[in-house]
Each structure stands twice: as structure tokens, then as C-alpha cells.
């Protein structure tokens, strides 16, 4: 099975070396992983916070992108960002079928999200966040995002 083999290798590599600001939380199976990320450059929006990411892998990973969302609990808030909804759904072209390349992996997704946060200065949610969060029952992969903003 491609998923298992690939994730096994990723895990070995991550255990050998985890990039700064990234922590493995749980990788018990090959369906769902939890990772923590921090923003290390002192961006005041995210200073001192840890954010928890949930990776859900389909049977077609890495041909298909994993489903990646921020999860909220007592110690892990959802980061403020104009492309991150308050329910943890992330609007990033890398995580969409069109933008995904099978060469990406858990580590590169974490790093992309770190840099997405690093570059942000806006302390705000996406437009229509309230509405979206109230109504959305879809899984992230079934939402067709429009990637119109290439600046952040």
C-alpha cells in the first residue's frame, strides 16, 4: 500500500530530523496524524502560541492531497489569518487538487503553513467567516475555494 509505505518513510525522516517549530504529536496510524506548529520569527500575532494541525490521509495519498485543518482545544487556538476560517479550515492552494503535487509531504505542508502565518500582518478572518462556519458541513476537500489572493 502506497500510503502506508510513504507515511512510514516520512515518519522515519521526521524522527531523524524535525524542522524547527514543528512537533510530532500523534502518528499512531496511517489515516490521521496530529502535528503542532509554532511561528518562530516573533510575529506578534502568533507569538508564544502553538497551533495543532490534523492531517487526514485518504487511500490515494500522496497522489491526492491530505486533508489538513487546524484543531482547537484548551491550549491550541485557531490562528488569526485572512485565509483560515475560525473552524480551522484552511484556504491554501497547496492543499487543493490543482495546487498539490505528490512530491509534497507532511513536513512541507507544515512548513508552508508556518510561512503563511509568518508573512501575515492582518489580524482578521476571511470575509464571510461567520456565515461559512455556521453553514459549512462539507469536508475541506469538497469545497471549491477560489484562490484569488496570491499576496499572503
Amino acid at each position: 500500500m502506497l500510503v502506508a509505505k510513504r507515511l512510514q518513510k516520512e515518519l522515519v525522516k521526521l524522527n531523524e530530523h524535525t524542522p524547527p517549530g514543528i512537533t510530532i504529536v500523534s502518528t499512531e496510524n496511517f489515516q490521521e496524524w496530529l502535528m503542532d506548529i509554532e511561528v518562530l520569527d516573533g510575529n506578534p500575532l502568533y507569538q508564544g502560541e502553538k497551533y495543532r494541525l490534523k492531517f487526514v490521509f485518504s487511500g490515494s495519498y500522496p497522489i491526492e492531497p491530505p486533508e489538513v485543518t487546524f484543531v482547537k482545544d484548551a491550549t491550541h487556538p485557531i490562528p488569526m489569518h485572512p485565509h483560515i476560517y475560525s473552524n480551522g479550515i484552511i484556504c491554501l492552494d497547496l492543499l487543493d487538487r490543482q495546487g498539490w503535487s505528490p512530491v509534497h509531504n507532511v513536513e512541507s505542508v507544515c512548513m508552508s503553513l508556518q510561512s503563511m502565518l509568518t508573512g501575515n500582518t492582518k489580524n482578521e478572518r476571511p470575509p464571510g467567516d461567520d456565515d461559512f462556519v455556521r453553514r459549512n458541513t462539507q469536508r475541506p476537500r469538497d469545497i471549491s475555494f477560489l484562490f484569488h489572493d496570491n499576496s499572503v
Partner: protein
Amino acid sequence: MNMDSDEEFNSNSNVDMSSDEGFLDQDMESDVSLGDDYELEASDDEEPDIGFDTQDKDVKPRKEAYQVDFQVLSPADIQASQDEQIDEVSAILGQPPQNSAILLRYARWNKERLIEAYMDKQDEVLEAAGLGSVATEQPPRFERVPNFMCDICCEEGDQLDTFAMKCGHRFCADCYTHYLVSKITDEGEAARIKCPGDGCNRIVDSKSLDFLVPPAVKGRYRELLTRTYVDDKENLRWCPAPNCEFAVDCPVKRKELFRIVPTVMCECKHTFCFGCSLADHLPAPCVLVKKWLKKCEDDSETANWISANTKECPRCHSTIEKNGGCNHMTCRKCRHEFCWMCMGVWAEHGTSWYNCNRFEERSGAEARDAQARSRQSLERYLHYYNRYANHEQSAKLDKDIYIKTERKMTQLQSASGMSWIEVQFLEQASQALQQCRQTLKWTYAFAYYLKRNNLTEIFEDNQKDLELSVENLSEMFEKPTDQLQGKKVEIMDRTSYCNKRRIILLNDTAENLKKGVWEFNVEMTG
């Protein structure tokens, strides 16, 4: 440069609308015109003998004014015409066919533009099309590379079969195949599948694809490519009938749809409008059809009428449901004969049928009263809607009757000793009824948008004639089987008369539409 813009690519296919027939043969990439040796002629004074072969377009020697040139293409035809264009471009540009195909798709099959752009800025075009810089072409093959590690499955080894396109992004063969199969079967992509490498824009060519994926997926890939091809070409459109694989090639351009109603018939016999894919809506142009359907969707005006599938007998007030196509109603209870349309006594209809198809606009005196006016416009609308819906309903009922007719045909055959060919007149009558009702239905939508003038008068006369002939035929059609045999000649005559009236009406509207002389009471804008 921005090669993706439609405007950019289609701007050289502008058509001179002032020419009456010129636009029928312009800008055709391949020789698809059926009508080169047909004459475009008015047919008002044609001989009456048009009865039996009008259904058969292949035998028909001449083109009516309302007809357009078109050709039905099978999946193989579409494939062949793509291949032909690809070969031609390959010969000119000196690119291998799989690359020419990518270039053509990128240029939305505008060959001239592509060649021009390519000659001008070769590298830019190749880059934008997803062909990067092209080194020497060699057939796709697997390679084994020392110390290789696949970035997709993280498998390593010298014995691994690997594959890379010209961009050099190398992955193991299994992963490459897996990736392509997933793109094609799960995502329905074909024309723009990129190399799996991160950020690489190289488009996967058909040769590499053929090399990597199993035959079933190849078939799907070709299907998807053909779909994109037909969607990209303005002169092609899929037949909208369910499960139909054919496409129609018709030279009528989008901007001509105000002047022409391009009605085409697919191999599967489905007749539809090339302009909007809706079922045959002659004689109304697409823009009016769109307006009309939108208006009819609006419940506020029609709710009463849509629910009104039943009426009361004008004499005894029994509730009657119309279950056949003819407007001549006979009350089961009191034997009263009346017209379903106007509820008037049927006997009067021999001479005063026109009361049933014309709406006389009220005099201007009432017009000052705003309420009366809105009332009148509603009534006017309902007049036309009622007749439109009636024909739609009748056509459905006629169809049901036809299904019974097939049985009748078999019965008639055994009862009378007629051959199967000899009972075909029933099928022809049924087809004529269907077709004429379809036309009549849309004449009411068309008439609703017409201003009152002499042309409209003529139109309504034609409409009246057609309607009368249709009701006459419809009535014959409902006779019990034992009477049908003796009525054969009469039914055949009436069938041929219906077809003729329909052609006259359609030619009249089509010619005036082409000349742009109809006056409408709405803006002719989409």
C-alpha cells in the same frame, strides 16, 4: 502575451452579418458544409408533393430557408478531425504530433493564431503551452538510475523502473502511472495534466501517457480530450440527448442567433437547437425562448393555469380531463361538442377558427386605467401561455397515442392484410403531429413578443392554417383501428398538408428573421 483570452483567439473569425448567405460558409476548418450544392431558395410556391420523404434529410434534394447546414459527427469522426489538424500543425511547426496536440489544445484549436504566435515567439508559446524548452525527442521509455529515490513513494533502489518527461522530474514508474490514472479517472482531467513535480508546468503528452497507463484509462483519456475539443470549438456541439455520443458541426455563430434559429437533427433523431441545445424551438430565436421560459417559470403568473389540466363542460359543467391530442371535445355525459381552446361550440369552428388563435388587443380606451392595463397584459400573456402549454400537453398525449398506434399498426396489418410498409402512414402521421405541435407551441411564444403589424398578421394566418391542419389530422388519428384502413389516403393527405403548412410558416419566419424585419416588443438581448 495572454493566449487564453477567447476574444484574442476568436477575433479573426468575425462574420459579416449583412451578407445573407455568406456567413454559412466562412471560417470552416474542415470541409463540413453539406449545402454547397444545395440552393438557398424561397419555397412559398413549391409544388405540393413534399409528403413522404420530408422526414428523410439525406434524400431531400433542397434546403428550406429555415434549415441550416450541419453535419453529424461520430466519436470517430471527431477523433479523425482532431488528428488531421494535429498532423497539419506538426508538418508546419516541425513538432512531433503529441506536442502539436498540446499546442493546439492550448490555443483552443485556433490553428492560424497558433502558427502565427509560434512563428513570432516560439519559446514563449512553448513555455505557456506547457512544453518548456524542447530537447531532442526520443520515445518515452523506462530508465534505471543508480541511487534513485522516488519522491512520491520514497522507494529507493538501482533496480527501480523510472520515468521522466523532458522536464527531467523523475519518479518511479508505478507512482507516475498511479498519478496519471488518478488524474484521469478521479478528477476527469486530460488536456492539462501537469508533471507531478512541484511547481512544474510541463503538460503530460499523449505519447508518454500511452506508455504509462492501462488501455481502459487511455480510452477514458481520449474521451475527455474529445470532450474538451468539442467544448472548445464554436462550430461543434454535443447532442444533448441522454447517452448520445454524437456531436453536430454547424457553422452558425453565437452572434448570428438573433437572425437564425439553427435547428439540427442528430444521428439519434433528436432534434435540437445548435445555439442553445434546447429541444427544437423553431421558429422562435434563442433569446426569445430564454425570455419566455424564464417568464413561464414565474409561478405568480401561471400557477392558476398550470394546475388547470381540467375544464368544465360549458353545457353540463361536468369536469373533463383532456386525454387525447385533439381540441375537438365531446362531453361523455351530455354529448355537447366544443373546442378545448375557446370552449365555444365546435360546429362554429369550421368557419371561425381564428377566434382560437388570435388575441385581439383591447382598444386603447381602457389603457389609461393602470389596473386594467396590468390585467390586460396578464390576460395577453395567459392567452399565449395557454396555447403554448396546450400544444406541449397535446404533443405529449399524441406521443402516448403513438405508442398505442404501434399496436394499431400491428392489428391493422393482421386485420387488413396490409404489409408493414403499407401501415407506415400512421407513423408518418404521428411524427408530423409531434413536429407540428412542437412548432405551434413555439409560435405562441414567438407571437407573444411580436409587435402588431402586417407581418404579424401574416404570421398569425400561417399559424392559424397550421393549427387547423394539425387539429384535423389529430382528430383522424384518434379513430378506432377498424376505421383507419379506409382513412389511409385521407390521413396521408392531411399529413402531407400539415408538413407543408409547417414549412411555409417556418420559411416565412426564418426569412424575415434573417432580414431583420420582425418588430419585437422586447429588447433582443440575452
